[in-house]
C-alpha cells in the first residue's frame, strides 16, 4: 500500500493564516502607524511622520506618569502575588485532606472575568454604600468613610489589592504543581541527614521550584505590564491619572482622542519594554539553571 504524504507545511497552513491575520498583520500595522500621522487631525489620511511620534513620547509628561504608575503597579502587585501564592501553595501542599476543596475555592477569583471583578470591587470599595467602609466603621477602625477610588494613593492601592486578590490563585496553582512534582524521597533523605524545615526548603523545595517560579513570574509581569481591563472598570485611570497605566493611556488616545498613530506609538513602546523584560528574565533563568 502506498501512503500519500501530505507536506507538513500544509497542516500548518490554517494556523499560519489565522496567526498572520490576527497577530502579524495588526502588529505590523501598529508598527507602521507609529511612524505615521493618522487620525482625526489628519482627516483619517496617512502621512509619513518619521520619528515624530517617538520624539513626542519622550517629552510627553502623561506618558511618563502612566509609565511610572505601570511600573509601580507591576513591582508591588507581582511581588505580593508571588509571595502570597508561594505561601498558599506551601500550605496547601501540606494538607492531607481537603486539598482539592482548598484548591478549588482558591481558584474562584481567577475564574471570574476581569470586568466582573472590577464591577464587584467597585461596589465593595464604594465610599457611601460599600461593604468595606461599613465593616471598617463597625469594627471601629474608621470614623469617616474613605473614598477608596477617589483619592490618588488609596485608588492605586485598591487596584493593586484587587489584582492581587484576582491573580494570587494563578501563582498558587503553578507553584502547587511544582511542589507536587518533587519526589518525597528527597525530603526523607534530607530528614535522615538531619536537615530541618529550612534546609528542606532551601535545598530541596526551592531548586525544584525555580523553573515554575519563573514561568509564574514571566506570565504575571507581562500581564501586569499590559493591564487594562481592571483599571478601566475600577477607576478609568483616575483620579488625576493616579491609576492610568500605559494601556489605558493608549486606549484613551486611540478611542477618545482618535489619534490612531500616537496610540499605536504608545502600544509599540509598551511592547518594546515587554520585550526587554522578557529577554532579561530569560537570561536570568538560564543563569539560574
Amino acid at each position, binding site marked *: 500500500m502506498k501512503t500519500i504524504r501530505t507536506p507538513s507545511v500544509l497542516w500548518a497552513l490554517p494556523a499560519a493564516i489565522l496567526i498572520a491575520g490576527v497577530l502579524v498583520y495588526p502588529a505590523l500595522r501598529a508598527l507602521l502607524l507609529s511612524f505615521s500621522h493618522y487620525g*482625526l487631525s489628519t482627516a*483619517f489620511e496617512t502621512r509619513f511622520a518619521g520619528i515624530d511620534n517617538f520624539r513626542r513620547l519622550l517629552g510627553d509628561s502623561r506618558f511618563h506618569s502612566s509609565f511610572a504608575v505601570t511600573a509601580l503597579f507591576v513591582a508591588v502587585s507581582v511581588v505580593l502575588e508571588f509571595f502570597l501564592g508561594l505561601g498558599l501553595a506551601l500550605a496547601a501542599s501540606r494538607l492531607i485532606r481537603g486539598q482539592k476543596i482548598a484548591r478549588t475555592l482558591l481558584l474562584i477569583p481567577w475564574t471570574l472575568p476581569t470586568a466582573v471583578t472590577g464591577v464587584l470591587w467597585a461596589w465593595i470599595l464604594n465610599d457611601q454604600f460599600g461593604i468595606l467602609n461599613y465593616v471598617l466603621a463597625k469594627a471601629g477602625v474608621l470614623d469617616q468613610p474613605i*473614598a477608596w477610588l*477617589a483619592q490618588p494613593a488609596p485608588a492605586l492601592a485598591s487596584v493593586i489589592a484587587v489584582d492581587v486578590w484576582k491573580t494570587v490563585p494563578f501563582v498558587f496553582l503553578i507553584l502547587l504543581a511544582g511542589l507536587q512534582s518533587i519526589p518525597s524521597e528527597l525530603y526523607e533523605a534530607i530528614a535522615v541527614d538531619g536537615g530541618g524545615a529550612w534546609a528542606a526548603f532551601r535545598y530541596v523545595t526551592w531548586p525544584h521550584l525555580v523553573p515554575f517560579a519563573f514561568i509564574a513570574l514571566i506570565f504575571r509581569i507581562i500581564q501586569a505590564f499590559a493591564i487594562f481591563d481592571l483599571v478601566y472598570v475600577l477607576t478609568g485611570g483616575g483620579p488625576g491619572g493616579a491609576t492610568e497605566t500605559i494601556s489605558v493611556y493608549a486606549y484613551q488616545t486611540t478611542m477618545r*482622542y482618535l489619534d490612531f498613530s500616537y496610540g499605536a506609538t504608545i502600544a509599540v513602546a509598551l511592547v518594546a519594554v515587554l520585550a526587554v523584560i522578557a529577554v532579561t528574565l530569560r537570561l536570568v533563568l538560564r543563569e539560574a539553571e
Partner: protein
Amino acid sequence: MRILAKISTTVLLVVLVGLSVLRPASSAGSLSILMEPDGSGIWRELFADFHRKNPDIEVELVEGPPSTNTREDMYSTAFLAGSGGFDVVYGDVVWVPKFAAAGWLLDLTDRLSADDLQDFLPADLEGGTYEGRLYRIPAFTDAGLLFYRKDLVPEPPSTFEELRTYAKQYKNPDRWGFLWQGKQYEGLVTVFLEVLWGHGGDWIDPATRTVHLDEPEAIRALAFMVDLIGNESPPGVTTHTEEDTRNLFQSGHAVFLRNWLYVWRLADQGGAIKKDQVGFTAMVHEPNRKSAATLGGWGFAISRFTKNPEAAWRLVEFLARSDSLAQVQQRVGLIPARKSQVPAEFLPILLNARPRPAIPEYAQASDILQRSLSAALTGRVSPDEALREAARQTRLLLQSE
C-alpha cells in the same frame, strides 16, 4: 487544561460580545439609536408612537451604559466601523465638534424650519454647530446655576466678593459656605469655566484656536477656587460630583451650591431643606464683568453612514417636536431647549449660557485642563504653575497638524 479552558471561554465571550454588537445592517425602514438606560420607559413609548404614525419605519433602541463617555466611545467605535452602526445619535453637546470634524454626521443646516430656528435656544443651536454648519438638533438644555439658602441669605450675591462674604457669614461647624464639583472630571471643567468667565477670562477661542489659560484672569479665577477649599468649601470638595453636593446641600450642610437645573426639580424631595428655603441665581462675577452659565444638554444628530437619511430625519424631527419634548420633560424632568417651553424663571440664565469650545480635540483639551485644575485644587502645584502647564500642553495639542 485550565489555561485551555480559560482561553476557550475568553474566545467564546469575545464572539458573543462581538455578535451582540454587530447587528445586521439596518434594512430600509429600520433605524437604531443608542441612548442611556430608558429607566422610565418614556423613549420606548415615544418610539412606539412614532412607529404608529410611520408604520414603514421601525426604531430599535439600544440602551447603553449610563456613563456619557462610554456611550461616546461606543458611537465612535460604530462610526469607525462604517455602515451597520447607529443611524441616529442622541448626543451630549460636547461630542458635536469631534463627530462633525471626523465627518461622521450629516449636515442638517438646511433641514431646520425658520420657526424652529427661532424657537430653539441660541446657545443650544450654537452648541450643535461646527464650522458654521448645524449637525445636531437641540432637544434638552442644561446650565450651571448658583443655588442659595433663601432663608439665610438676604439677597442673592452678584459678585465673587459677596458670595464669599455671605458664605463666611452663614457657615457654621455643621454647615459649609459653598459647595461645587471639584473631582477631576468634566464637571470640574464646567464649574471652572463659569468662574473663569465671571473673571473675564477665557479658555480656548475655537475660531482662532488661541489658548487663554495662562492669562491673569484665568489665574485669578483658579486662585479663587483654591482659596475656597478648607475655608468656605470643605476639603472633600475635590472628590465631589453633582449628587454628593446636592445631597449635602439638601440635608442642610451648605449655604451655596453650584449645580445644574435638575436640582430645582428635586428641591422638594430633599431631606431637611424645603423648596421655599432655596433660591437660585446666575453664577456670580467680578464687578463690571458678566457671568455666564456653562451650557450642557442633549440633542439628535444623524449618522453619515445611515442607509436611510430621510427616515432618520423624520425620527429626529418627531423627537425634537415640542410635544415629544414635553412628554420627556414631564416624565424625567429634562428641560426642552425651546424658548417656548423653558420655565420662565430659567430663561434669563439659559439665554446667557455659553457652550464649551467647539474644537475637535475637545476631549483631550478637557483632560489636560482637568488634570491641571485638580493638581492645583489638591495643593500639589500653584494655580499659576497649573495653568501655565495646561496652556503649554493645550497649545501643543492645538498646533500639531
